């Protein structure tokens, strides 16, 4: 029984880390309809910025996160203006080609500037060490990731479902022409959404760095994981992404505990079953 609890805790922690890292992609793919394979590249840029600020400049973890999120968004703004804007409404294949190109560039540049080794973001003392749950201990930074995930989920849900901006965004997504006719400045809405998505990628990259350490190949290494999480959850659905992360986290963690050798099989078979049963994702928006 204790083992079951223990696995459940691991699954929750892993799932929430996945959620924090992937949710930004769910926004780009579901709400902006851009298959952004460069999502990981932005998370990685944030990781480098945080590492530089917190470790090399010694500014501390909180400042590191802030600098990483703001800095990554600033880097992303010209990219949105000159590259991504061309992708809105383009075919999926075109989006794949462009964003993979961007990813290659970012990898090359990161390798050139920061070198190929792993970079870490030093944790504040409060997040180091373990938290005792009674029957086992869990790393403090994982608890932090869980909290971050919940806060992000709530904030995003509120932003999209409960604010005027959210209404505009959903209108722009569902029918850009109609929204424009109603006075919604779709370009601005898209730019802001993109910034939000990139900010989330950045936050995820920093918070998840304990599990997925920052190095130049980060941008491609986890791309598949992000894509799977988003589509299993249903692109654009915040609760869906949350559910997908918890389900996939549970399957992955349990599979790895019971039969680590066949962990990959478990995971991808589960993905096939879920995607076949729920082609729009677990809680996907019904409109294609």
């Amino acid at each position: 029984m204790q083992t079951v609890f223990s696995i459940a805790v691991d699954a929750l922690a892993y799932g929430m880390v996945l959620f924090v890292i992937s949710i930004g992609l769910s926004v780009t793919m579901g709400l902006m309809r851009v298959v952004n394979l460069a999502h990981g590249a932005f998370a990685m840029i944030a990781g480098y910025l945080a590492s530089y600020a917190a470790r090399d400049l010694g500014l501390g973890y909180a400042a590191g996160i802030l600098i990483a999120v703001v800095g990554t968004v600033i880097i992303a703004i010209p990219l949105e203006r000159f590259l991504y804007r061309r992708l809105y409404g383009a075919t999926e294949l075109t989006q794949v080609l462009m964003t993979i190109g961007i990813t290659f560039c970012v990898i090359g540049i990161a390798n050139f500037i920061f070198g190929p080794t792993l970079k870490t973001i030093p944790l504040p003392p409060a997040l180091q060490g373990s938290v005792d749950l009674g029957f086992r201990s869990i790393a403090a930074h994982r608890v932090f990731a869980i909290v971050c995930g919940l806060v992000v989920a709530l904030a995003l849900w509120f932003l999209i479902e409960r604010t005027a901006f959210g209404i505009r965004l959903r209108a722009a997504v569902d029918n850009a022409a109609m929204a424009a006719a109603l006075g919604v400045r779709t370009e601005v809405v898209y730019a802001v959404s993109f910034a939000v998505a990139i900010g989330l990628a950045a936050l995820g990259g920093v918070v998840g760095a304990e599990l997925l350490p920052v190095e130049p190949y980060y941008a491609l290494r986890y791309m598949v994981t992000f894509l799977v999480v988003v589509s299993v959850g249903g692109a654009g659905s915040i609760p869906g992404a949350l559910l997908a992360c918890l389900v996939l986290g549970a399957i992955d963690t349990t599979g790895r505990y019971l039969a680590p050798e066949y962990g990959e099989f478990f995971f991808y078979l589960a993905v096939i079953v879920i995607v076949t049963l729920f082609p729009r994702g677990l809680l996907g928006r019904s409109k294609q």
Partner: protein
Amino acid sequence: MKKLAMAAFAVAVLSSAAYADTIKVGVIGPFSGPFAVSGKNFKVGIDAWLAVNGNKVGDNEIQIVYRDIPQADPAQSKSLAQELIVREGVQYLAGFYFTPDAMAAAPLLSQGNVPMVVMNAATSAIVTASPYVVRTSFTMWQNTTPIAKVAKDQGVTKVITLVSDYGPGIDAENAFKAAFEKEDGQVVETIRMPLSTNDFAPLMQRVKDSGAEALFAFLPSGPPTLAFVKAYNDNGLKAAGIKFFATGDLTPESDLPALGDAGLGLTTTYHYSVSHDSPENKAFVAAAEKAIGNPVELTFPAVGAYDGMYVISRMIEATGGKKDAKAAVEAVKGLSWTSPRGPVTIDPESRHITQNVYLREVGRDADGKYINKEIQTFEKQGDPGLAFVKK
């Protein structure tokens, strides 16, 4: 047009076969992509050797031609090796980080009359792929076997093994099991982890449940090793007194700063530590650190490349710059010298390097830098894996 092309073709063929006072060495390695740090170390090792010894052997000038294979890709390896031999006219092939890449290029050697000096790829069988293969790195068996003895010496009788589920991992598992059972130890469970594993927490739970007193681990150096070591600490295994044994692949010097204090006290066996205390190593490290720019990135493939260059230089010396793979390989069989890692010999029979393997513990040096501190030496280790292959 056709005639002209044929003529050019003939010239290219002849010039590569004929005596040349510039001798080209083709180096194939992962210079970009996820293993770029290893490729960089190849280059650093070679640059260091050239800096220390100059780029001339006798009258012959050595020129290095690099080719990139970001991830294991035998088809590309073969095509690059062929291009290097045929178009660039290289007299030596070197590098090779991944086993399948070396395996794919090996059949070209006798036809091309070119020796291959493997600077990393660590599967025992590679030397059997062609009589022209010489290896200056290590094998999984070579580095793994001594740690079983260490475990036994520390009074451990029950061990659980965790290895990445691919060739080298399975080699490590077999090697550890064979050596530990010879010491009357018991491997209570063997776990193979998919290479893509990011989260090791559930596996640490398995370790706890297994009742083992220690774990033996192998993962290729890179991001997962960091997560693995952290999971070992965070999930309370360290606190519970479960010992940690591994090969040095888990604690390459380039990962140590990232591991930080979490890595302190980890014991691994390996053929080379950057901190090895010898005049040869001091000279090597000084040159290598200059070549690499960022000293933190310096780690084991560099020494394989450095020694590989030494072997190649002896080959050039022996053949007088002539293209003669057979004579070149014969000349280095049984060759002994003092490498930065310690005394080494090219075993005449297997053409693999016989070397000391060291037990190391992660610690800090006087400057506070994280290092692998050598605490015990297993002298003149051959490759036990070859016997396993032949079985």
